[in-house]
């Protein structure tokens, strides 16, 4: 089994959970360790309870895992909630002045820090956090120098005095732990690798910059706001026009306007904002003006659980806007893929002049992952399709008004001239129109033209399907069980497969990245040869299972679903698979034990 080490830091919002989390993350990534971080939090700015899990190790870490090695509760509430989850070999570092430990399982090391004796708590309100950081690193076998340099960067802006005060407190915690606590059995190694640590939102924003996005607009909505924040902070360096708009209806229409002018434009939101955008998607489809919309799913319906994850928006994406039109929907598989997928979907949306939807979720959007910098490629392939930006281009126009914006072609793609190009004036309309862009929907209603235009647009579906690769089966072909997932569950299902295989149940995985086009025949071909198939997804009704059935008539052997707002942990899937293989049930809904 892979070596991993997981830290849980819990406390009230505003108590400083994030800072030690960031410092641990920096130290791990600089040691060449992979890491995955997930913050379970509430929709409040101060108070409540937040719980940050950071899992690290020398090999790829794809999810929060099943086990905590170190718990740092910053208040009594966090202690009460989480101590019971620790098992033999784990440790809990806490402020002995203010927190009572309760009963821990056998083999769990309780590490009380005499905070008021080690630091001047009247001067430093977060002394307990800094002491715990130092103590934890000592027990992990990491030299103090690593912490000293990160603290130096962290507090640089506040001046030398603040830096040395914090270094002093950290040192006191470090030395106290060295003298009084048992180190962890396996110290964390070092590697020569260096990773960037980023959230899915930052990855999608940077992916947009790499894809040549010049216009980004948004209305703030959790969990998508991180995309706006990165875009706004880097807009001037990246040459991107970034606007905060009055509502999501304005957002999608503004993005379409900019795209129609000839620039790549993108926007991001969550389910509620997407609902407001859906008429705009129809506009993009009808005018054949591409736009890329990111939907970061959170638990719904309605305001739902704004800070919790779900894969509950699939049918909203499939059904967004009325009428039939070509669209593409992609669900990134992890945070590195959240970067890579943006240039890919732009190329398809622009080639086929249709809306592209990226289906992320809170787990990916706000989770953080170590990514090899080589995977953040700022020189991806750019294909802008049949775009006419100057009058001289061969464009189906002789310059004498013969240009037809919606020319009927075999591919369904009509060369797209942008405003400002002489000799190509035309009107793009949300009403049904003829090849010239002239409305046919009112008094000119003409069934022959309507049918021809509908078929022209829908012919693009064939090209889109050919442009996107079908999904592939990972793992042994003849495995006992096939786990099917989509998007963000990739990592946790992969780990569940490894655990199952270790335990003597061979498992393979079919992970869907492109939801539209689905490649139903290729999927059927794989699943028909599978022995026992289970669809794993983070929603109540099995949205993907229902979609797969509607496209292919395929019915799997079982389902694993979770809709409590928290992501899957590997053991949820492992236990559910075992339960289903005995024939006990076809539907497993694992309970989330970590109360956050």
């Amino acid at each position, binding site marked *: 089994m892979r070596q991993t080490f997981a830290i849980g830091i819990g406390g009230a919002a505003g108590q400083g959970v994030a800072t030690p989390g960031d410092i641990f993350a920096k130290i791990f*990534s*600089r040691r060449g360790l992979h890491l995955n971080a997930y913050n379970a939090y509430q929709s409040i700015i101060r108070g409540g309870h937040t719980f940050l899990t950071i899992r690290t190790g020398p090999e790829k870490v794809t999810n929060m895992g099943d086990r905590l090695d170190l718990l740092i509760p910053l208040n009594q509430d966090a202690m009460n909630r989480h101590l019971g989850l620790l098992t033999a070999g784990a440790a809990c570092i806490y402020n002995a002045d203010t927190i009572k430990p309760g009963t821990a399982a056998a083999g769990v090391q309780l590490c009380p820090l005499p905070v008021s004796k080690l630091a001047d708590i009247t001067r430093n309100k977060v002394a307990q956090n800094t002491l715990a950081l130092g103590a934890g690193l000592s027990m992990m076998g990491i030299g103090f120098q690593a912490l000293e340099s990160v603290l130096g960067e962290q507090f640089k802006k506040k001046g030398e005095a603040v830096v040395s005060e914090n270094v002093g407190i950290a040192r006191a915690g470090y030395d106290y732990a060295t003298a009084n606590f048992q180190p962890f059995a396996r110290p964390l190694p070092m590697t020569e690798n260096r*990773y*960037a640590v980023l959230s899915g939102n930052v990855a999608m924003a*940077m992916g947009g*910059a*790499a894809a*040549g996005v*010049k*216009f980004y607009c948004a209305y703030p909505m959790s969990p998508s706001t991180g995309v706006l924040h990165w875009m706004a902070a880097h*807009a*001037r*360096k990246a*040459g991107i*026009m970034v*606007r905060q*708009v*009055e509502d999501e*209806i*304005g*957002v999608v*229409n*503004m993005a*379409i*306007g*900019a*795209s*129609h*002018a*000839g*620039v790549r*434009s993108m926007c991001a939101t969550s389910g509620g904002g997407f609902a407001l955008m859906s008429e*705009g998607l129809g*506009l993009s489809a009808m*005018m054949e003006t591409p736009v890329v919309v990111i939907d970061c799913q959170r638990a719904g319906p309605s305001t739902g659980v704004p800070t919790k994850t779900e894969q509950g928006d699939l049918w909203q994406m499939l059904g967004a806007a009325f009428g039939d039109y070509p669209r593409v929907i992609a669900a990134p598989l992890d945070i590195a893929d959240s970067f890579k997928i943006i240039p890919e979907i732009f190329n398809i949306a622009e080639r086929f002049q249709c809306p592209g939807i990226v289906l992320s979720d809170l787990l990916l959007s706000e989770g953080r992952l170590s990514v090899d*910098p080589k995977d*953040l490629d*700022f*020189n991806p392939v750019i294909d802008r399709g049949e775009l006419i*930006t100057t009058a001289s281009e061969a464009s189906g126009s002789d310059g004498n008004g013969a240009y037809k914006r919606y020319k009927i072609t075999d591919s369904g793609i009509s060369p797209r001239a*942008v*405003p*400002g190009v*002489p*000799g*190509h*004036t*035309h*009107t*793009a*309309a*949300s*009403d049904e129109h003829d090849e*010239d*862009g*002239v*409305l046919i929907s*009112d*008094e*000119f209603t003409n069934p022959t033209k309507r049918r021809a235009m509908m078929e022209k647009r829908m012919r693009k579906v064939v090209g889109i399907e050919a442009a996107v690769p079908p999904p592939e089966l990972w793992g042994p072909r003849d495995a006992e069980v096939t786990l099917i997932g989509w998007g963000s569950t990739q990592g946790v299902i992969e780990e569940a497969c490894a655990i199952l295989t270790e335990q003597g149940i061979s498992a393979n995985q079919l992970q869907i990245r492109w939801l539209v086009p689905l490649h139903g025949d290729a999927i059927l071909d794989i699943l028909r040869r599978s022995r026992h198939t289970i669809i794993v997804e983070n929603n109540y009704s099995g949205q993907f299972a229902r979609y797969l059935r509607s496209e292919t008539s395929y019915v799997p052997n079982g389902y694993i679903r979770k809709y409590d707002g928290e992501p899957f942990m590997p053991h949820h899937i492992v236990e559910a698979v075992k339960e289903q293989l005995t024939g006990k049930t076809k539907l497993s809904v694992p309970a989330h034990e970590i109360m956050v």
Partner: protein
Amino acid sequence: MATGLATPKQLVAADFKGKVDPDWCPGCGDFGVLAAVQKALVELQIPNHNVVTISGIGCSSNFPGFINTYGMHTLHGRALAVATGMKLANHDLTVIVTGGDGDGFGIGGNHFLHSMRRNVDLLYIVMDNQIYGLTTGQTSPTSRVGMKTKSMPFGNIEAPVNPISLALAAGATFIARGFSGEQKHLTELIKQGIQHKGFSFLDVFSPCVTYNHDNTYQWFRPRVKKLEDDPAHDPADWVLAMQRSLLWGEEIPIGKFFERTDVPALHEAEPVLNEGALVHNGAKIPAEVSRGFIEELM
């Protein structure tokens, strides 16, 4: 036939004629607005391909199909949002937004408000007929109290919005009112609105001859009084403009209520556009900049 070097062609009214003739009811006020826009573009000699007319949905929103420029016939109420994206992506274009009172002040009210405070550089012409026409005659946000329509058969009991006062309060930097029955005056206002750098709002009385039997040409003609003929009016005086905007009844002012030129247009205020229009900036992000983006995360 002349050969050799082409000299820039003098644009004439026929150059701005659309692919199809308007399908508005005979006598509709919108014909006058279309003619005035075409005249203004000829007088300003702006090439067709550098103009984008953008509309929402409704009788008047069919406008882009009837004029030879680039056009976008978008969604009900969304023209200003689309136009803002268009202008920010290519601020070299002349952007004219056209629509009706329901489109602009009803379903599109939020975009109207925010486009004004943003001072997006475009001309927004509302063909205000105080009724919903394309849906066959319902009360609109500018219908008078008491007006009987199919949706309010016993008379409207809701106060109408005052578009001029609203625009003044929201910070529009050019605010005018025209009348479709006053062609020369309207053309002049359109020219000024196009030339103004910032958000130009032009509310035009454009009578609906089919569904609005209250606010007809005959009703407007004796009432409209040009602000340009009022020696006491000063378009630089916001308070005065607000007072004039409240006049309604036997005398209704038309003309330029207000203009200020000291506020930068949205595209002028954004340093990202200092190097020119976004659409002409195809450059990739320089390698040292993208390297910096990644290093921040390490």
